[in-house]
C-alpha cells in the first residue's frame, strides 16, 4: 500500500503537572501512517496509547500538556501550541471514533442531528448536503434503513449500531486521518470482525489513514498494515503487521504474542502471563522500561534507555535484540524503509 504519508508523529510527548512535580507520561513517539493504510497501535492498558492520540487531537484532559509535532497533509503542527489554536484541524483533517459506543452520543439529541452537527456548525457544507452525506455514510457502514436510524435517539441503538454511527459521524467531514480508539472493546466477537473490516474497506475507498488503537493482538494482526507496539509511553517495536506479530523482535512483543490465547492451544495448558505489572509513569528509571520484566535483561538495559534500531522496516528498542541483529546480517542503511511509508 504505497502512498504518501498522511500523518507523521515527531517526538510526541505528554507531561503532567509542572515545576518539580512534572511527570512525563509519553516519552517521545514517532509514527507514520500512509494514506489508505491502517496502522495499529498496541499496548497494555496504561501504556499511553490513548493519551498519545489525545495529544495529537488536542483533547488532553485538564492538567496535561503535550509537546513535539505532527505532520498532517504536508502541514507541520507543533503540539505545544494550545489546543484551541489547533482546533481548526479537528473534525476537518483529523477525526476520532471514541471508545465507548454507549456513551459516545448525546443521549438527548437525535442521531441525525449529531451526525451533521459538526460540518453544519462549521459551515463546511449546507445542511442538505450534510444530510445526504450522512445517509450515504450510514448505508456504507451497513444500515439498511438510514432514514429510520437518523430519527432514533442514542439509547435506542445497540452497541454495534452506535459504533457504526460513531464511524459514520467521524467520516462525515471526509477527514484525511481517522483515529479509532479501541472500537471493539465493548462489542462481542462477530461484531468486532465486521466493524474492523468495515473500517479497512472505507479507509481504502476514501484513501483515509487510520490509526487503530487496540490491545487485541489478533485483530491488529488481521486488519492492520503496520503496527507499533507501545510500552510505558514509548514505542518498543514497529513495522509491517505480519512481521511484528509473527516474528516479533522486542522481548515485550514476543511476550505479548505468547500471551495471546490460541484456539489451537491444548485445553489443559495454563495461560502464560507476563510476570510483574506495567510500571507507573513515576517509577520508570533511566534504563529500558521493560527491564524489570524482561527475560533477557542485561545490566546495560538498566542504565541506558534503548532507542529504536535494527532492521529499518522493523526497528525495536532493545539493546540485546539490536546487537544480535547487527552481528547476524549487516546491511547497508541506504535501502528504502518499506515499513516507513
Amino acid at each position: 500500500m504505497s502512498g504518501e504519508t498522511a500523518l507523521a508523529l515527531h517526538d510526541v510527548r505528554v507531561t503532567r503537572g509542572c515545576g518539580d512535580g512534572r511527570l512525563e507520561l509519553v516519552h517521545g513517539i514517532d509514527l507514520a501512517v500512509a494514506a489508505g493504510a491502517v496502522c495499529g497501535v498496541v499496548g497494555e492498558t496504561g501504556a499511553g496509547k490513548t493519551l498519545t492520540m489525545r495529544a495529537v487531537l488536542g483533547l488532553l484532559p485538564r492538567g496535561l500538556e503535550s509537546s513535539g509535532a505532527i505532520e498532517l497533509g504536508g502541514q507541520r503542527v507543533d503540539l505545544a501550541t494550545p489546543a484551541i489554536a489547533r482546533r481548526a484541524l479537528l473534525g476537518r483533517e483529523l477525526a476520532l471514533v471514541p471508545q465507548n459506543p454507549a456513551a459516545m452520543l448525546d443521549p438527548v439529541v437525535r442521531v441525525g442531528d449529531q451526525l451533521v452537527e459538526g460540518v453544519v456548525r462549521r459551515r463546511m457544507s449546507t445542511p442538505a448536503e450534510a444530510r445526504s452525506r450522512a445517509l450515504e455514510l450510514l448505508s456504507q457502514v451497513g444500515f439498511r434503513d438510514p432514514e429510520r436510524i437518523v430519527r432514533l435517539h442514542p439509547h435506542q441503538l445497540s452497541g454495534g449500531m452506535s459504533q457504526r454511527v460513531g464511524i459514520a459521524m467521524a467520516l462525515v467531514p471526509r477527514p484525511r486521518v481517522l483515529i479509532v480508539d479501541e472500537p471493539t472493546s465493548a462489542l462481542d466477537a462477530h461484531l468486532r470482525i465486521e466493524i474492523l473490516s468495515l473500517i479497512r474497506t472505507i479507509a481504502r475507498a476514501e484513501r483515509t489513514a487510520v490509526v487503530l488503537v487496540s490491545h487485541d493482538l489478533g485483530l491488529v494482526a488481521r486488519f492492520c498494515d503496520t503496527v507499533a507496539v507501545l510500552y510505558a509511553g514509548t514505542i518498543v517495536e514497529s513495522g509491517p503487521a505480519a512481521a511484528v506479530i509473527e516474528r516479533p523482535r522486542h522481548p515485550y512483543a514476543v511476550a505479548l504474542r505468547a500471551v495471546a490465547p490460541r484456539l489451537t492451544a491444548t485445553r489443559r495448558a495454563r495461560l502464560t502471563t507476563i510476570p510483574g505489572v506495567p510500571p507507573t509513569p513515576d517509577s520508570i528509571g533511566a534504563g529500558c522500561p521493560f527491564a524489570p520484566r524482561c527475560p533477557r535483561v542485561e545490566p546495560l538495559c538498566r542504565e541506558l534507555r534503548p532507542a529504536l534500531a535494527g532492521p529499518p522496516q522493523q526497528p525495536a528498542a532493545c539493546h540485546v535484540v539490536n546487537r544480535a541483529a547487527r552481528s547476524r546480517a549487516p546491511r547497508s542503511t541506504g535501502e528504502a524503509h518499506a515499513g516507513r511509508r
Partner: protein
Amino acid sequence: MVRSALARHPFARLAFSRLAQGVVVLFGALLVCFALSAATGDPADALTVGQIGADSAQIDALRDHLGYGDPFLTRLGDFFAHALQADFGSSYRTGGDALGAVLAALPNTLLLVACALTLAISLAIVLALISVMHRNRAADRSIRGALALVQGVPDFWLAVMLVLLFSVTLGWLPAIGFDGPRSLILPTLALAIPVLPTFVRLMRGNLLDVMKLDFVTSVRAKGLGERDVVLRHAVRNALPPLITFTALQVGWLVGGTIIVETIFAWPGIGNLAVDAVKARDVGVVQAVVAVTALSYVLLNLVADLLVAAADPRIRMVPA
C-alpha cells in the same frame, strides 16, 4: 384493556402513575389541613374576640349554631364529603364561597410565582454557564462568592429594602397592589433573588457532571468550540434535574409569597391564607391548603412530562 392502552403510550403511563400518586398526596393534604384547622379553633372564637361581656356559654352556643360543635369524626366525614365536590363551605367573614375567594386570588400568586421562577431560572442558567465556562477562574469565584452572600440575606429584609429604595425614595415603581405590569417588578425581584443561589448551585453542579461524560469529548472531536459544547449539549442534559427541582419548590414558593405579598399588599393566596388562619376562617384555610396541594401535584406532573419530553431515556415509568 386500560393497561395495554397505557403500555403503548409512555407519556400516558407516566401521567397516569403520577396522577395516582397525586390523589394520595391530595387526600393526605386534606386530612392534615382539616386536623390543622380543627386544632387552631373556629369562627366562633374569632367572632367573639371583640364582643363585650361575651362569656364561654355564649361562645359555645354560637359554635353549635355555626355547626362546629359536633364531634370530630362527623365533621371530618362531612368535610371530606364536601371537599371531594370542591365545596369548602363559605368564608364566615365575606359570606362568599371559600374556594371561590381562593381561586380569585390564585391567579395573582401564580403570576407572581411564574415571573419570579422565569427570572430566577433564566438568570441561574446564565450565571451557571458563565461560572462553568470560566471554572475556578475569577468569574466563577466571584459569582459563587456573591451568591453565598445573597443567600444569607433574609428575604423580608430584601423586600423591604427594595420598596424603600425603588418606590418610596426614588419613586420609580408603585409600592403596593397590583395595578399594571410596573407593580409586578419589585415583588418578582423580592421573590426571585432569595431563590436564585439555590438554582445556580444546582445548575452548576448538573453542568459540571454532564461535562465529565464521554459524549462531550466526541462533540469536541468534531472541532466544535466550548460554547457549542456547553450551549448545544451540556445545557439540554443539565435542564431536567432543574425542572424537577423547581416543581418541588411549590410549597416553599407559596410560603415565600406570604412574606412578599404581605409587604407589597399583593392580593394573592399568601395574604389570604395568613388572614384566614388568624381569623380562624376555617373554610378559606382548607381551600388554600387544598389548592396548594393540588397545584403541587399538577406542577409535578407537568414537570415530569417536561422532563420526559426533554430526556427521551426517561420515557419508562419512573421509580
